[in-house]
């Protein structure tokens, strides 16, 4: 299967690989996917007092498209408000990376990961 140059770029030079302190109340962690399905994404966001994502990190187990999708969204959500980040649609991710139909689930997983991280952050805030 031929990958798009953008997928290859993110796969070879992934942005924002790493871990934030999950115990920090300013940090939200999303863990989506399943090992049995061949992809697991962990996405973490650090949110400042104005509700803006000031840092994002990811770790992904999966194919090149899954790694690229998660790397891309960490770039996109930095500097965005939670509302803006939560509105990112998988179709836009898929389009940007030129994912073939068989890889669309990678972009859906990336969208889910953002939502899960935001959820986790808000849950911690309200607790």
């Amino acid at each position: 299967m031929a990958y798009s140059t953008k997928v290859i770029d993110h796969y070879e030079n992934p942005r924002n690989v790493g871990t934030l302190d999950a115990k920090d109340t300013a940090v939200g962690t999303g863990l989506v996917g399943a090992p049995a399905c061949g992809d697991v994404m962990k996405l973490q966001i650090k949110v400042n007092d104005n509700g803006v994502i000031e840092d994002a990190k990811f770790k992904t187990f999966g194919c090149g498209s899954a790694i690229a999708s998660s790397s891309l969204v960490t770039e996109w959500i930095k500097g965005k408000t939670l509302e803006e980040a939560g509105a990112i649609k998988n179709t836009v991710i898929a389009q940007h990376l030129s994912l073939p139909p068989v890889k669309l689930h990678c972009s859906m997983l990336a969208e889910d990961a953002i939502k899960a991280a935001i959820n986790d952050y808000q849950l911690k805030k309200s607790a």
Partner: protein
Amino acid sequence: MSDRPIYLDYQATTPCDPRVLQVMLPYFTEEFGNPHSRSHAYGWRAEEVVEEARLKVAHLIHADPKAVIFTSGATESNNLAIKGVAHFYKAQKDHIVTCATEHKCVLDSCRHLEQEGFKVTYLPVNSQGIIDLKQLEEAITDRTSLVSIMAVNNEIGVIQPLAEIGKICRAKGVFFHTDAAQAVGKIPIDVDAMNIDLLSISGHKIYGPKGVGALYVRRKPRVRLTSLITGGGQERGMRSGTLSPPLCVGLGEACAIAEAEMASESARLTALRDRFYKTIQAELDEVYLNGDLEHRIPGNLNLSFAFVEGEGLMMGMKDLAVSSGSACTSASLEPSYVLKALGVEEDMAHTSLRIGFGRFTTEAEVDTAAKKIIQEVKRLREMSPLWDMHRDGVDIKSIQWAHH
């Protein structure tokens, strides 16, 4: 060769040996006769070289040359053996026994027979990929016409106990077919000593040309089959169509070379494989071998690199040509059914690579490949949330994953 990926996928196909190509060439041009032409020297010459080739194929498996017919490849041979025997004996018998890890063309032939009303037993395999002989014995009934068990598995390279299977089949009075596409030329095969009644051969798995194979069909006691392709009645009526002398000659030469070099090549490949595997094991933890190591052809390894997804791994190794049991490399998004049959968990099946060594693999290539794999596995594990969990002592199976 240097700017091309290192080829480590010898179970998928092999290059045609230049020595094979050399002997094939005249039969494309000046010696172009139809081997079935009886009235002139062009035909006689073509027939003569086809029969010489048949002799070489037969010799490799210790068979009567008259019992070897040429086909287009192992897929056709398997279809012909299974459907042909089932159809011929269907008035008395309507049951086939095969196994869960067979090649798709065997399983699909069986599925088609099931749709026609035949019954098929799919034997399981143990965690090493080997069938249980007791289960085989119990599966055979007086309605069974054929047992079809592969000699060597294409994904994990494990060798089934052919002689024991043959003995059981002979005692029970059922025919024994084996798909030997991955076995012929790599391990000794003797159709008489092993009581094999039908045996499928592929040209391109043994450094011969693509588009040719053979089927051994025992004459004593005689195995009858209904042909799939009808027409001029060539190949003793079992496979009509004009034979291709260059392809037959190529298969014959490939068999002769494989036979002459089997012992030395087997020792060389075993050394290369062990060298590769030891290097990997010395540098990486959490690497698991799929399938038995002892009952295995020398040129195959199937390894699961835990916490690293197979397709992602292959993408980082563009200079290596290997294949993966990961779902992501298949259109169906299902991980390897062979690994599944061994009881390999789906998450581990996603991390598997099949590494195949062959006649043109060098020690330098093996070392380069091992180094590259080690480097990529380490890089991707640093990127893997599962690797983090493993290092933190989290049991990945204890987590409630949302399956999608």
